[in-house]
């Protein structure tokens, strides 16, 4: 990457504000959210439940609208859903009647690309996520981790400007989770795609993030953005890793009282 691209922002959020009205009562989700994410960065958003981290991600995705403020992806204002923003959901959300290959193809088919190009792209991304041999399997034949890999391949196949990940590993068992975190890191390094991930797992955040965005409870928005400069691949058992994790945990204990 040259210097010009380094300062270019994949995502720029300004003055974002969101409230829900439940039974006539206004509940502030967050306000005054400003965030700038450089191209190729890995941002992880953490926060207690109710801090609005998932809502923030859904607004970036265009699935929900903000009350105030703006979101720009690749320099263009976000109005609604768009395929320059890839998304990986907590549940894999695969179509059970389609094979793995067809599931990964869906966005490319909707884009109207020629068949041979789709096949090529799908093969490439299935290999990337380590599922080259499972193209003709059905989702019901896959384990949770494999299904999530399909979800990641499906999103990456669209060559998005940013990849939004909504607790993508939240439903996996501990061992699979650690393996998938390594996978995600490798994919991010190989593809150079900007990633914005929401998680409630502090260790996961410290392992993956360039920057950890801590969301405040009670609708105050972003409390702070913490750069993580540990060298990769990160060693979970190292002193430095533990130090960062402890500091973050303490942060949450303080915020709870």
């Amino acid at each position, binding site marked *: 990457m040259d210097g010009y691209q380094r300062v270019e922002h994949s995502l720029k959020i300004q003055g974002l504000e969101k409230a829900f009205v439940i039974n006539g009562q206004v509940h502030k989700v967050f306000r005054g959210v400003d965030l700038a994410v450089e191209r190729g960065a890995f941002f992880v958003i953490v926060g207690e439940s109710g801090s609005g981290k998932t809502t923030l991600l859904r607004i970036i995705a265009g*699935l929900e609208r903000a009350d105030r403020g703006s979101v720009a992806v690749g320099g263009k204002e976000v109005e609604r859903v768009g395929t320059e923003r890839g*998304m990986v959901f907590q549940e894999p959300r695969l179509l059970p009647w389609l094979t793995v290959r067809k599931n990964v193809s869906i*966005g490319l088919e909707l884009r109207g690309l020629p068949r041979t190009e789709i096949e090529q792209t799908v093969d490439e991304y299935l290999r*990337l996520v*380590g599922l*080259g041999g*499972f193209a003709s399997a059905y989702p*019901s*034949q896959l*384990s949770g981790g494999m299904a999530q890999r399909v979800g990641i391949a499906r999103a990456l196949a669209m060559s998005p400007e940013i990849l939004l990940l909504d607790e993508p590993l939240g439903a996996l068992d501990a061992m699979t989770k650690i393996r998938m975190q390594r996978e995600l890191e490798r994919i991010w390094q190989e593809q150079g795609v900007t990633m914005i991930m929401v998680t409630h797992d502090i260790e996961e955040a410290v392992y993956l993030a360039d920057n950890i965005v801590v969301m405040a409870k009670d609708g105050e928005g972003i409390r702070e953005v913490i750069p993580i400069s540990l060298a990769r691949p990160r060693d979970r058992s190292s002193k430095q890793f533990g130090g960062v994790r402890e500091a973050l945990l303490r942060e949450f204990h303080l915020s709870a009282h």
Partner: protein
Amino acid sequence: MLERTPAAEAAAEQSVLPRLFSLRVPFLRLAAGGAARRFAGFSWRYGAILIFLLAWQLLSQFNIVDQSMIPPFSKVVAALLNGFSDGNLLGNMLISLRRSGIGFGIAVVLAIPLGLFMGTFQRFESIIDALLQMFRQTSALAIYPIFILLLGLGETSKITIICWAAFFPLLLNTISGVKLVDSRLIEMARVFGASKWAVFRRVVLPAAAPSIFVGLRLSATTALLLLVAAEMIGAKRGLGFVVINAQYNFEIPLMFAAIVLLAVIGLTANYGLLRLQKRVCRWQQAGQAKAGPLRTSRV
């Protein structure tokens, strides 16, 4: 860039292999030397029927039950063969098949599109739901005299009543199939650039297909039920007429022959629709339990 493929990592994922194998079992059974096992399943399934028929035969043959009321099964088979060779049963069967086929066919053509529409546009559904429930809860047979009054005693009134009765199970199952589509899948499709029409075609329709098939099978059963009733009330031909007429004339073996024939038609229709469902919804066999008769009891 893509050199370092982590196939080994994926393979290492613990739960993968056992899962694949356990799910492959049904395929293996069909593919490899499962013929014997399949036969075993077959014999258990149909053994009960054979025992029933055998008991029927023996109880009647030794006059433990009154032979004149319940003739031995062999006599019923003889009457069946006889009825086919002299063309009596065959002709009546063809007439019955025509009536129920047309009635069912019209119901299908009307109910599936309307059901898809109502499931998609739920405001429309909520408006006419009460009316539909009223129609549905009114016994079709009770309405039959109205149709006779309006349409006469000919084919039209019979086909109409069959169509009417077959319409509702299919419509309601189609609506619920569309309404119960996982909204998260729809959201996913939108994120990947699907228009409303693409969402309908690629997500809603395939997701609703199993439920539509349940409706089809219920409707086929209903069509046959109404066929017999309509033919018993106001017909001079057809299998339902044969049953009631044979009873009047005390041709008991012929009566049983017509009943057996109706049962066979019902089973065949259901089997055909199941086969069609397995072809259309092939994905269901991979993971989900087969959409067998269990699901019909839901409605």
